[in-house]
């Protein structure tokens, strides 16, 4: 019976649910969007226009200005997360994994809870906290005689986006913390012991031993942050509305897409230009992820324990 191997049906059967669902709700709509961006709709029907929509987006001074403004804001939003959320997450994880810490489970839960809150709640609560009229922030600052430091952050072009970025950091800092925490726990005790025998303890141990071992996790967190930030929409929309005021200073690609696709107030929605922006978002994320996969991921050294 040295014949063919039997067909391994179970592979197809086990893959089918994920493949079918993923195709139906992710891959088909994605290609639908890409296709939509190549057409122009008018009352007489849909006409194929090739890359004209992309030419409008980058060639027309107004569209281009809006797009670059949204992209720049989005980049700043991402930078805030990379500079604040991830380092703070790592710091929290390092503190949590300290063997002498008490109430560890409580801290872990408390820091993680905002992550599971709805954006609408987070946006609303922070709008209230930062409100110049009824907010907690102005009266708290007043307690310390620092009222002069308060300003209507969400209403100032210079601060609004940074303020919202930090709100988002507050909400999501639990995720890098948990991932890093898990990575730190998985470092075998033998390695730590060996380090201690060599006289590397405390902070030096973190920098020289642990940080190197968790680098792959930090890489994954960075790429998750990147994808999440360039898809962001909800927080800005719930806090600042679809026009992402003041003066479009908090406009990111997600709100720009929403406004264009669905329209806003008297503005009628334009699904084709909307799809063009959505396609650009897809390409930006695709390029970012590829850069990471090929340029960084491959160079990270992994250790097998």
């Amino acid at each position: 019976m040295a014949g063919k191997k039997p067909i391994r049906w179970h592979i197809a059967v086990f893959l089918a649910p994920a493949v079918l669902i993923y195709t139906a709700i992710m891959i088909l709509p994605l290609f639908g969007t890409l296709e939509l961006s190549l057409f122009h709709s008018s009352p007489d029907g849909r006409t194929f226009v090739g890359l004209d929509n992309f030419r409008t987006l980058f060639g027309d001074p107004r569209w281009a200005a809006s797009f670059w403004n949204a992209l720049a804001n989005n980049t700043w939003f991402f930078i805030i997360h990379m500079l604040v959320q991830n380092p703070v997450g790592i710091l929290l994880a390092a503190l949590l994994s300290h063997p002498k810490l008490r109430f560890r489970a409580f801290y872990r839960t408390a820091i993680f809870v905002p992550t599971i809150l709805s954006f609408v709640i987070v946006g609303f609560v922070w709008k209230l906290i930062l409100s110049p009229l009824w907010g907690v922030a102005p009266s708290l600052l007043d307690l310390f005689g620092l009222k002069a430091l308060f300003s209507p952050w969400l209403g100032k072009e210079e601060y609004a986006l940074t303020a919202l970025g930090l709100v988002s950091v507050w909400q999501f800092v639990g995720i890098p913390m948990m991932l890093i925490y898990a990575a730190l726990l998985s470092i075998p005790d033998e390695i730590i012991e060996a380090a201690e025998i060599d006289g590397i303890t405390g902070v030096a141990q973190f920098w020289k031993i642990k940080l190197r071992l968790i680098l792959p996790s930090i890489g994954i967190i960075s790429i998750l942050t990147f994808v999440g930030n360039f898809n962001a929409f909800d927080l800005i929309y719930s806090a600042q509305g679809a026009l992402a005021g003041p003066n479009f200073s908090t406009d990111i690609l997600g709100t720009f897409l929403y406004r264009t696709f669905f329209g806003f107030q008297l503005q009628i929605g334009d699904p084709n230009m909307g799809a063009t922006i959505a396609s650009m978002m897809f390409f930006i994320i695709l390029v970012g992820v590829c850069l990471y996969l090929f340029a960084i991921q491959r160079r990270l050294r992994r250790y097998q324990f």
Partner: protein
Amino acid sequence: MRHTALTGLLLASSVLGSASLAAAETTLTIESWRNDDLSIWQDKLIPAFEKQHPDIKVVFSPSAPPEYNAALNAKLDAGSAGDLITCRPFDASLELFNKGKLADLTSLPGMENFSDVAKAAWSTDDGSKTFCVPMASVIHGFIYNKAAFEELGLKVPTTREEFFAVLDKIKEDGNYIPMAMGTKDLWEAATMGYQNIGPNYWKGEEGRKALIAGEQKLTDEPWVAPFEELAKWKPYLGDGFEAQSYPDSQNLFTLGRAAIYPAGSWEIAPFRAQIGDSFEMGAFPPPVEKAGDKCYISDHTDIGMGLNAASKNADAAKTFLTWVASPEFANIYANALPGFFSLAKTPVEMEDPLAQEFVSWRDKCASTIRSTYQILSRGTPNLENETWVKSANVINGTETPQQAAEELQKGLASWYEPQKK
């Protein structure tokens, strides 16, 4: 992608929605952005209609104002929208009619109760076809706290000079915030600010029509001057007004912390409910330049009701719309919602003194509608939305009136032929 997720949600809601329609009698669903009016529809208007037509059930199903247009368009495309559509004025509804989403109601019994002016907001450009029953208009002006005015010995201002003198006095006294308005939500600055005081500068319909015809530009004096006045409002607004939202402004006034509120008449009913007996409200129209000048007010045809062309209950819906066009509806509506003024030819008796004050301006001032609504917001960039952003910028002081006007003009001229010269 986000929009696909949204569409999916809407589709899902349509399936659920149609499942509940399986009842024996006809059920009509009304789409609306007036979620504030839910109780009035449920307690007053719908029972009055159902008493006469026991075989028709009506459900009022509003969504939030900023999402309404987008949500409605998506629902209409997905075929899940209600039978009756509350119509935004002008282009938003005209576009729906041109796309065949709204039915032609020109010959609907009851339409004869409205003048051509009232129907203009929901008619084709040539006026030959009407697609929504006009329900109400709203008037802009200023609502003030009578108790505060008495306490400080202030007189109701009629000229701009007096207006700013009053504001100065309130500021000097320091007990009240002179004016309750914020720029965070943007539209307050444009709607309660620019469109409120503007008609006195551009002479109402005269200026509005000249702008549409291309005879005036947004950089002309009458269109820049309202921005210049808005820029002067800044010192009279509350601390941190840049982050003050629309509900914040409403609360500041109803809690008695602010003396003057740049208003639309739609505030009357909610303000009464909030204020109760704590103080009396009064109102004055936008002040003119010199005493005795002709005054202009924004009397904006704001709300109408049309028929979803894809409705399966078109006959019942038309019965309902004929009732909406009747004096009976006008009477209940105008009194239940003081501040939404009937557009019917037959005058409606209103009990609310503040509503009477607002509507009395129709006799002494010339009415106009918001300048950006008809025709001028058809293209991209959208003039109305741009005006929101620019008005807020001007009050925040981040842009000069001149710059704001120039950018608006540049945007309008980029797509609107008559303004290209």
